[in-house]
């Protein structure tokens, strides 16, 4: 059942991505001063929002895990962090590529860039610790704390442009994009969020299967110990 839903979600995501590419390259006009490189904007902004969503999902699930100890919440948290990191990585790579053309430099020390980098580094640490820390309770708890710390940075990233300015344009709230660009951005957001949802659900499914493997492994070890105990017990009774 889950597999069917995932398949449909994947089909929907693929169609949405194709539509978004069509809207971005076939419908939205080329920007006058920056040229074609501005087309990075549509997936850059959408990916940033998808990354925030992944990090918030990770944080919410981590808090739930810390409160209730539910392993399923831990699986959801890990899925949110991994997919969030994926989209955040794209944001951190596509941003400098766009900036090279738009600002004449790959990177500046403006608040939004630095705070996004900080959030990304915190969640990179989360993913690395999860990978090398093994399936232990202490690793899960440390990573839950990291997720909460990382999410505290997100509102600062969001409001950095409004409070401290910097080079990032404020085109969305000021009506600074044309109607065709608005349409392309909306379709791109739909595509990126459907892709995000598919990847998160897929990762949750893999995580649940890994949890099942761990449970069965414990069960098999316990059964093996039972057999060993039965084999030894007659010897202990009649040495």
């Amino acid at each position, binding site marked *: 059942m889950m597999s069917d839903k995932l398949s449909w979600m994947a089909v929907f995501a693929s169609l949405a991505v194709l539509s978004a590419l069509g809207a971005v390259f076939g419908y939205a006009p080329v920007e006058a001063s920056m040229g074609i490189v501005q087309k990075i904007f549509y997936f850059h902004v959408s990916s940033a929002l998808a990354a925030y969503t992944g990090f918030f999902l990770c944080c919410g699930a981590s808090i739930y895990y810390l409160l209730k100890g539910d392993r399923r919440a831990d699986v959801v948290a890990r899925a949110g962090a991994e997919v969030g990191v994926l989209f955040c990585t794209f944001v951190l790579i596509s941003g400098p590529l766009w900036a090279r053309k738009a600002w004449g430099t790959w990177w500046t020390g403006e608040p939004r860039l630095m705070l996004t980098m900080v959030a990304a580094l915190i969640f990179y640490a989360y993913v690395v610790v999860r990978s090398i820390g093994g399936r232990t309770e202490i690793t899960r708890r440390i990573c839950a704390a990291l997720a909460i710390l990382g999410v505290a940075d997100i509102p600062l990233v969001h409001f950095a442009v409004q409070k401290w300015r910097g080079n990032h344009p404020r085109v969305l709230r000021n009506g600074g994009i044309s109607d065709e660009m608005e349409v392309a951005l909306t379709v791109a957001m739909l595509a990126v969020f459907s892709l995000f949802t598919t990847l998160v659900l897929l*990762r949750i499914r893999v995580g649940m299967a890994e949890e099942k493997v761990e449970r069965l492994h414990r069960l098999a070890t316990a059964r093996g110990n039972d057999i060993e105990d039965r084999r030894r017990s007659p010897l202990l009774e009649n040495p």
Partner: protein
Amino acid sequence: MKRLLCLAAAVAVLSVSEAAPAAAEGSGAAPTAYSADRLSKEGFVPAAPGQAVEDSVPGGLLMLTAYGVLWTLVGGYLWRLSRRTAATQRDLDALGQRLDDLNARLKQG
């Protein structure tokens, strides 16, 4: 768990609504009339049809690289997930067989 997923969906919807351009602001204007009022000074200005856009830095290459990175990241992650799925399935099969053996030995006494 469903609550968590609902919470994530709500965050996603809020993020989109937060960032989605306020279409109502420009709804009264003709779709292609990009007046000075409609587009702020720091907004994106569409090039007029046939207008040559100055391009000293290879913007096309930068854009292609960005999109290439996105699809490489997504493809790489999907490949990694498929490998993990296959490995997990192998582990599940092996563990199932081991448990069957152990259960049979337990029954034999």
